[in-house]
């Protein structure tokens, strides 16, 4: 065992067997990690200027708004349905298209299927670039390109889903046991055929589960996208908050909560069936 600097400060434990053989166990690295986390926490408090006393003096205002929302303005519901379905539609369509496009992207990024380092490196890089763009920023850019409305929201959800599902799937594909793939190649199948029959059956449940999970999250994201003009219920929410019409805001949030809750439950049920 090679002695590192750390081992000189924190001596490894030595066990000696009866016949004189020794086995060394390295000291735990946890103290160093804890120390780093503490330093990082302190540093972030200093740089962000987080002020806990402000939380105490102004925190109660949060409850003033909450109380303002009760009771919600039930008459407002007729103006919610339209934007609500826009939101669900754009997240459904965006998630579906994104999950489909993720399949070839994941295949091309998997180093165990595509042996060419440049090809899979390029697609991995492409996926990570897409992921670094926040959905909100994407939506903003798309509103410039395609105008205000659900089209921009749908596209930004599509890009996010493709990159998210693509990333998780290539990581999964890279960890799949390649035995069956090898066997299929030895039987004279092409790489694509071997992928279809050896890898897809192994990763399909995970793929469906990850896609459903992405859809779940996308409904929540889609609700905010209206803030940058990308359509849906966020538009209404932003408008009512601006007018301090808290009872209507309360109604929007209530409906949103119920819808998200139902979608999450349904998706969770199907994901459990898959595993």
């Amino acid at each position, binding site marked *: 065992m090679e002695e590192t600097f750390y081992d000189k400060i924190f001596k490894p434990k030595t066990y000696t067997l009866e016949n004189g053989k020794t086995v060394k166990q390295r000291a735990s690295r946890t103290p160093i990690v804890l120390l780093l986390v503490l330093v990082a926490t302190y540093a972030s408090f200093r740089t962000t200027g987080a002020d806990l006393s402000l939380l105490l003096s102004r925190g109660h205002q949060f409850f003033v708004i909450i109380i303002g929302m009760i009771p919600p303005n039930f008459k407002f519901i007729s103006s919610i349905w339209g934007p609500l379905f826009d939101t669900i539609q754009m997240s459904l369509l965006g998630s579906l298209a994104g999950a489909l496009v993720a399949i070839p992207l994941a295949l091309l990024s998997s180093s165990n299927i595509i042996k060419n380092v440049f090809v899979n490196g390029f697609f991995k890089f492409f996926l990570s670039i897409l992921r670094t763009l926040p959905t909100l920023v994407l939506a903003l850019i798309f509103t410039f390109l395609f105008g205000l409305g659900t089209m921009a929201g749908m596209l930004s959800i599509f890009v996010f889903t493709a990159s998210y599902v693509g990333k998780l799937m290539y990581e999964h594909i890279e960890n799949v046991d390649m035995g069956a793939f090898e066997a299929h190649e030895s*039987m004279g199948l092409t790489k694509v055929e071997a992928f279809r029959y050896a890898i897809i059956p192994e990763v399909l449940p995970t793929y469906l589960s990850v896609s459903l999970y992405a859809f779940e999250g996308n409904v929540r994201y889609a609700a905010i996208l209206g803030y940058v003009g990308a359509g849906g219920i966020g538009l209404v929410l932003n408008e009512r908050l601006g007018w301090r019409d808290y009872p209507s805001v309360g109604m929007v949030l209530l409906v949103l909560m119920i819808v998200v809750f139902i979608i999450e439950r349904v998706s969770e049920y199907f994901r459990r069936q898959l595993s």
Partner: protein
Amino acid sequence: MIEFINVNKTYPNGVTALSNVNLEIEQGEFVAIIGLSGAGKSTLIRCINRMHEINEGTLNVDGVNVSQLKGKQVRAFRRKIGMIFQSFNLVTRTTVLNNVLVSSVPELSFWRKTLGLFPKDKKVAALEALDKVGILDKAYNRVDQLSGGQQQRVALARTLAQNPSIILADEPVASLDPVTAKVVMDDFKRINQEMDMSILINIHHVELALEYADRVIGVRKGEIVYDGKSEDVTQDVLNNIYGSITEVPHMDDPEEAEV
């Protein structure tokens, strides 16, 4: 007939796996290849169906120079050679029948193979292959519900459905218990005798090799050090194949003892 003429194989990391191998294996022979781990047994059989490339020499299978095949020709050539693996290499999340059906994929139309729709005659052929190894009743079970011995027989059925003239088996019984190992070896013997398929088997169990194979090939450090009838294998021959005891890794080696 499989013919190795002065075959050499060196891996990119510099390890010599085969050195100056000359062999002739007639159609219908049952050959056991024995030797230490890392001696080159796996490489030897994987060169035959081009899962590995050779560096020098000529390797002919049924008169075809294997090294000169390209792309599509390699795949067509592999259809005639079955392969069995130590870890079975089945798709565990699907049914036994689906695994056997995979062997017919290259013969299907684009839409059929994309959607996984197998015609009736392929299904019947797959079921017949399962019947030959005695696990017809498991056809619609998922593979992960089967025991190791049953899984290896599914792999054997998958190979049989391909109707090959040669079967290459890389440590087929190494992960099986002694009783199941015999059952699988019996299957190999029966297939060899009834269907006249050549069988090349890499195996660590010397006693099984001597009991089932007609011919034994001993490999040591990439060289063929014994090639003859299994009846003629003596303790001296085995000592020569497996080397003196000093070449076996020792437990008190300081590098091995590290945790």
